[in-house]
Structure formats: C-alpha cells, structure tokens
C-alpha cells in the first residue's frame, strides 16, 4: 500500500504526545492543566491502539479506544466536579496548596 504513513511515525507522535502529557501532569500547578495533560496521555495511548489496529486489520483496538474515550469523559466529569467542590471550599485549585494528604 503505497503512500501510507509507516507505523513508526504514529508511534513517535504518540510517544511525543505522551511525554508532553506526562511532563505537564507532573509540572503544572493548576488542576485543570493537569487534567488536560492527562487527556493528552490518554489520547497518545488511543493513537497507538488505532495505529496498530489499522496495521494488523484487527478491530478490537478501535473498540478499546471507544471504551477509553467513554471512561475519559466520565473521568473528566467526576474530576471537574471534584475540582469545583474543592474550589468552593478552598477558593483555589492550585495543587501545591492542596496538601492535606499527608501524615
């Protein structure tokens, strides 16, 4: 199949996306930004799944991606709700100041 994009390109792009997401999740202080970074990482994983699914002509990978999207949407809803609740309590969503989870 000429003109198709080789699998390695997809993987490199996914790895880049994942690294950016991970770096963002670890370094950002704003809760929403961390959220966005996590979405990036999830979608990097989705990209790999779809790429391999296409390569091997196997539909399961694409099916899993729909599950991931659904779960990610639910997670986003719960996460945002949590952050709203936290914001109402603490007037901030700076995770550096949300340090109650300690001994």
């Amino acid at each position, binding site marked *: 199949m000429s003109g198709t994009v080789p699998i390695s390109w997809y993987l490199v792009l996914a790895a880049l996306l994942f690294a950016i997401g991970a770096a963002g999740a670890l370094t950002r*202080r704003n809760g929403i930004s961390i959220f966005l970074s996590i979405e990036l990482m999830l979608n990097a994983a989705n990209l790999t799944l779809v790429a391999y699914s296409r390569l091997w002509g196997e539909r399961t990978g694409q099916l899993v991606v729909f599950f991931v999207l659904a779960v990610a949407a639910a997670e986003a809803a719960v996460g945002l709700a949590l952050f709203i609740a936290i914001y109402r309590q603490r007037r901030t969503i700076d*995770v550096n100041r949300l340090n109650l*989870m*300690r*001994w």
Partner: protein
Amino acid sequence: MHLLWLIPLLPILGTAMLGAIGALGAIGRRPPKALVTLIGLGAPGLSLALALACLARYAAIYPRPYEQTLYAWTAGPLHLDVAFLLDPLSAVMLFVVTFVGFLIHVYSVGYMGHEEGYRRYFAYLNLFMGAMLLLILGANYLVTFVGWEGVGLCSYLLIGFYYDQDFPPYAGKKAFIVNRVGDFAFLVGMFALVARYGTLRYLDVFPRLAADPGPALAPYALGLTFAGFVALCFFVGAMGKSAQIPLYVWLPDAMAGPTPVSALIHAATMVTAGVYMVARSNAIYQLAPGVSGFVAAIGALTAIFAATIGLAQNDIKKVLAYSTVSQLGYMFLAAGLGAYTASIFHLMTHAFFKALLFLGSGSVIHAMGGEQDMRRMGGLKRALPVTYWTFVVGALAIAGIPPLAGFFSKDAILAAAAGGGQWLLYLVGLVTAGLTAFYMFRAVFLTFHGEFRGSDDERHHLHESPPVMTLPLVVLAAGAVAAGWLGIPAVLSFGARLDRFDRFLEPTLWTIAGHPRAVHEMGAGTELGLIALSVAVAVAGILLARRLYDRPSDGLTGPQEDAAIAARFPGLYRTLANKYYVDELYDRAIVRPLARLSGFLWKWIDGFVVDGSVNGSASLADLLGGFGSLTTTGNVRNYALYFFLGVLGLFWWIALS
C-alpha cells in the same frame, strides 16, 4: 484395701468442696459454718476410717507390701505410675498422720471457731492432709515428691494464714524459699536415680540395689559413690523439709501460723517427712556409710544446737519449735546410725507428745487471748486443769521419763549410738536429753506455776478450753503415755519379746548383698546402766528447772530468775536468746547479697538491657518511619511523580525479564 487411693483423695475432695461452697458468696450468702465443719472434719474423718480399715486388712498380708497402681503417668522409656504403696513403714506413717491429723482437725473446730477465714483454714488443712498422705503412700519417688511439694505449699499457705499482718506472710515466704534449696537437691537425687536405673519405683530400685550393690558403689560425683551422691541429695532435701542445720531457720518463724497448724505440720507430720524419706531409702543409705555418718553428725549437732536455743526463749511456741528442731535432729541421729526403726519409732512417739504440747500451748494461748509470752503467764494450772495435766504428761514424755512414750524411743536412739560405739554422739544425745527436760519444765513452771503475771483483764478472761479442744488433748496424752509400749527394749522385757515396733518395721529394711547390717549387742548390765543414766539426766533437768523456776521461797518470779541468770552469764545468755545470730548471719551472708544481686539484675539487666532493647527497637522503627514520612509531603504532584517513577520501574523490570 483396694480403696487405698481414696485415703489421700478424700481430703483433697474436701478442699475442693470447701472451695466450691465459697461460691455461695456470689449470691450474698455465707456458707453455713456447720457445713464447713461437716466437710472439714468429715473428709479427714473418713480418711481415718478408711486408713484403719486398710490397716486391718493389711494385717492379713503382712509383711508383704501391697502396691496399688492407678494408671501409667508417663509413656516412653521412663515408666512411672501413679501408684500407692502400703508396707509396714507407710502403715505406721499412715496411722500417725490420719490419727493425729484428725484429732488436730477436731481441735481446730474449737480453736479457730471465732476466727475469720474458718472455711479457708479448713480448706488448707484438708489439702495438707491429702498432700501428706500422698507423700507417705506414694509408691515411687515422684508421687512422694508431689506430696512433698504439696505439703510445702500448704505449709506456706498456713504459716501466712493471717495475711493481714506483716510477719506471717514473711515467715511463709521464708519457709517456702528455704525449702526450695532442699527440694532442688531432692530433684537432683531423683534425676541421678532415673539416669542410672530408669525408674523411681521403690520396689524396683531397692531390690536391684540390694541384689547387686556393685554399680552403686562406683565413684560418681563430688568424690562420692553413686549411692553416696543420691543419699546426700536426698538428705539435703530432708534438711530443708525437716529443719536440720543449716536449713532449720524457717521452722521457728513458722510459728506465726495458727497453733493447730504448728501442731500438725510443724511438729507431728510434715517436718518428719525427711525422716520418713531417709528411712524409706534405707537401702541407699546402707550403701553410703560416709553420708550416713554425716546424717548422724548433722542430726546430733542440730539436736544440741536447737536445744540450747530453746533454753532462753520466752515465747511458748518458740520453745516448742526449737524443741521440734532438736527432736528431729534426734531422729536423723538415729537414721544416720542405721537405726531406722528407732528413728521412725521416735517419729511416732514425737508426733503424739509434740502435737499434744502444741495443742496444749494453743489452749493456753486461747485462754490468754492470743498472748504467747510466758513472762506474762504463770499460775495457769488452776484455771486450765485439763490443759495443765495433759501438758505435763507431754513434757514428761518428751523429757524421757519412764514409762512414757519418749523414754522408749529416746532410749532406742541412745542405745543405737552407744551400741555402735559412737560415744561422742551418745554424749551429745544424753546432754540434749537433759537440756530438753530442763527447757520443757521451765516452760511448764513459767506457764502454769507461780502467780499470774498478766493484766487483770486477761485474768478475768482465763478459762478452760471447750471439750472439743480438751478431748483431743486427752486422747493425745493417752498416746503420749502408751505409744512407747510398742517398742519396749529387750532388756526391759523380762524374757518376753516386747520390741514389737522394731520387728514390725523389720521387713522394710533391705538386706544388701555382701553388706550385712551391723547388729550391736550390748551387755544387759551396760544397757541397764545407760538407761538409768539417761533417766537420771532427765530427772536432773526437771529438778533443776523446778529449783530455778518453781521456788516461791526466794521471792523471785520465773522471769526474774531468767534475768538473774542473764546477769550472771550475759554474753552466753544473749547469744542463746538471739539464737546464735544465725538469722542475722544468713541475712548478711545470703539474703542481702542476693537482694543486691536482684537489685542489680532489676535495675541494670532488666531496666537497662531488656527494657532498653525493647524501647530501642521501638525508637529505631520510629526513626525509620520518620525518614519514610518525609516522602509523604501531601503534594499531589510529588505523589504523581512517585507513581510515574514506579511505572517506569515496572516497565524496566518487565523489559529486563
């Protein structure tokens, strides 16, 4: 006779029942006193009845021993049974213990009637009877040892009966701890026997020793032969239980218990357990002449040592206590000389007259409202006639005046010493006999003669004890008179053989192959002369006491006479009154260093090393946890980083494998 096992069991059941009815307290009712009396007297009473029945049946198979095996105690190579043995020796002990024991139980009903802890008292006393009967009926050393420890426990409990005072619990602990020393040696002796013979059964060990004494005479330990080593171990055990030098110190303090307890445990039965054990082990002692000599020497030394202390005591029970130590010394003197029957004979007569004397002193103390100091008594014979006359009978018996019991048994021991050519031991025994007569009659005169020296309140309180107390006195007095007639020496029998006691016990003496028992024959003239001499010494002791303490003409009361003597021999008198300072010596030499060592172990070993290592390990965990908790910052991004690193690590690990 197949009910033999019930004899020790019944008093133990009595204890259990007395304990069980204490549960009535849970519903707010006190157990009725009559019920306590019924159980407390019924159990030893039934025991006595059964014992008499068994003894009557035993007469049919005499002199064969009767052994009753209940069940096998141990499985495996060491075979031990829970078994009882009735032979002439345990028959004598069985009779003495159940008979005298029952009388003392009866007496206790009167003596302890007004005391707190009536039920507790009888529970302990019944348990004591059970343990003592276990001791004498045991068919092997281990059953005997269980009884041996049981009587020690009851002794401890009963000495410390008045636990709300300071001294009795202390005296109880002292008795228990001193006895541990002896018990340790007893155990070592048993271990040696087990190691060599693989059994502790009397009818196994002794016949084998008797048939083939060779191996027992081989060198073993401490420079002794095997028989010598075991004999020494058992004798050290007997030293503790039977209050011999150097382990006698607990017995005088044991007088802190109720007086009937002193009569039963610390005069008639428990303290004679050591003598019984030595006589029981005569096969071993016959093979250990050196240790036997040691036994005789310790016995003689104890006899005269305690007798001299008895001269200067003012507490009526202390006089009797030292007298008991002294008479026990007599018994060991006999046992050491190989006159085992004489020692058991003296054990039996002593049980009668010393129990009588203790119960008599109890009656006096009862009348005096608890006062035990003879200096505050005097002239009691008018108020307590029955007590007085029975006490005099007991004193005459222990002094060795014919034809009372003590004369015959003491004479048998002195004859054994003289017959064996042990003139030094004989002399010690003779002097002790004189001292005994003196201090006993000093006690009689100080207590019963002269004028009353107590307060007016006490004078009005004086009364003869109730019949429940005087009746045992009278019965025991009859025993103190007649018990000796069982063993009239040949020279006084006028041709008839009246030394029944010796011949009755003869079957329990083992004849060792190749070691014939020495038979000492003395000329009849010599023997009669020695008898006359010992009687003369006893009479002299009594007359001297009478001259000093019962002489109204010189206007001095008994205590003033004592003071006069003390003024003439100040050093000697003080030494005797302070019991040769042995307690002080032990305190300095043993108790205090031990207390210091314990203090060191407590403060440094326990406080520093043990507690320190426990606390230290806790501190270490705390410290490590402190480091660990530094990672728990509460910052979500740190946690995310750990998670991320963890996932990386996991991948790394998977990639590697």
